[in-house]
């Protein structure tokens, strides 16, 4: 593993592209159990990220994460904005002074700080049918060095059979069952694209 600022920016570019390509699908997922804007929300954030990266040309991992955090915080507005924003703000702090992430252990510490940010801000637990249902297993699997596509995919799909206890989806009660969580899906894109750089 040799994740430098170059890989991080390539990863986040892939993520931005994935979000853009799946914008309508994410909003569609958000329609039956939310307000149908998750794709638009994430897209607004990632578009800003791309613009800001272009402008500021950061050359550290930490500064790159900071730009992403600020873009998400200042452009999304939905629940996902402050949650992803806090995650990347924490990851900004966790990577200060780090030029290269070269082990699963190092990577897991960084991603775990992100997950802790989401947990703290959103006060949700595993199984509440949120993006955390992807972040938590991902952190474990990186720790265990068995981080792969299947883990991500399964974690995302597992949200399908759940009732939501947090966020807008909690208002639809039982009717949430049968629908994959949009935030879990966007998080699955984040980690799928990360896999390319490990």
């Amino acid at each position, binding site marked *: 593993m040799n994740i430098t600022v170059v890989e991080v920016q390539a990863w986040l570019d892939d993520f931005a592209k994935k979000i853009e390509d799946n914008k309508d699908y994410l909003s569609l997922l958000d329609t039956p159990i939310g307000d149908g*804007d998750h794709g638009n929300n994430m897209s607004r954030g990632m578009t800003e990220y791309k613009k800001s990266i272009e402008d500021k040309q950061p050359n550290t991992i930490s500064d790159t994460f900071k730009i992403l955090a600020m873009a998400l915080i200042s452009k999304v507005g939905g629940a996902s904005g402050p949650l992803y924003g806090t995650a990347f703000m924490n990851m900004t702090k966790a990577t200060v002074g780090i030029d290269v992430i070269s082990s699963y252990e190092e990577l897991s510490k960084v991603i775990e700080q992100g997950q802790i940010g989401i947990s703290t801000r959103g006060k949700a637990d595993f199984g509440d049918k949120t993006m955390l249902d992807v972040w938590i297993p991902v952190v474990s699997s990186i720790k265990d060095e068995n981080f792969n596509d299947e883990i991500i995919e399964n974690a995302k799909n597992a949200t399908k059979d759940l009732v939501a206890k947090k966020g*807008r989806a909690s208002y*639809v009660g039982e009717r949430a069952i049968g629908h994959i969580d949009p935030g879990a899906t966007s998080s699955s894109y984040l980690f799928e694209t990360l896999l390319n750089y490990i």
Partner: protein
Amino acid sequence: MKKIINDPSNVVEEMLSGIVRSYGNLVERVDDSRVIKENKLFNQVSLVSGGGSGHEPAHAGFVGDGMLSAAVLGDVFTSPTPDQILTAIQSTNNGQGVLLIVKNYTGDILNFEMAKDMAEMEDIRAEILVVDDDIAVENSLYTAGKRGVAGTILVHKILGNYARQGKNLDQLLEIGNDVVSSLRSIGIALKGATVPEVGKEGFDLADDEIEYGVGIHGEPGYRKEKLQPSKVLASELVDKILASYGSETKEVGVLVNGMGGTPLMEQFIFMNDVLDLLDQKGIKVIFTKVGNFMTSIEMQGLSLTTIDLTDKSEWLGNLESQVTTISW
């Protein structure tokens, strides 16, 4: 979608511009922001509210002497972002702190909390008052809690007058929580609203169908049913609201709030039925207000809000006080 707009992605920007240009005698825009603030700031704790757009006149219509110091406008049905909220805090704070009045939706809560954290880093004290008056979805361990709806306007009004009278931030927060716990609201929808960027109605109802308990962003309610006469609708809502209070409610204020597409005629007919029912139950109505205050774009429907004013003559005074706003 049939709307008098230009670019669907620019509606908030153009609306905001329309508001400040039309009512420049009362409010102004903080430069390069989504914040509408009072022209004159007073020497008091500042009150800031906000949320997604599409609920007009909430909240910009309630900015002015005796109500809010500023309103922050998010995209349609989307919370404003922390940086915008921070701008509202910075531009209204005059050393006595800022009370953020937030409707209980995860997105709003998280963005306002983040703004509060950012304000603290600049040594500005900000506190969050969460309004969760909508009893259609019961508070429980299994949801994000009750939603915040039209009762928020009464919170603006009561706290706005207290703030003007010089209450400090802690006092306002304490009274605010007391006010919130005396509020109850439920909505009814006849027809969904269309978010401009989405282009189709947020939910569907059959031609003869209504839904009880719908939220102000079209969140699902607790029952769909054939359209009933106003009296029957009123009775359903009044019963549910009174049951949730327990038994000691003697005096209330009543707000009938139009959702945007329902004419005043229907709102007054409905209020007439509500007043009949409360009369029959021996509950005294000492404050009333009817109109479009917390809308859901052009949704057809209305909401009923009550505030328990038993032994709260001071609150009544605040509700009746004169204010200088666009829409109270």
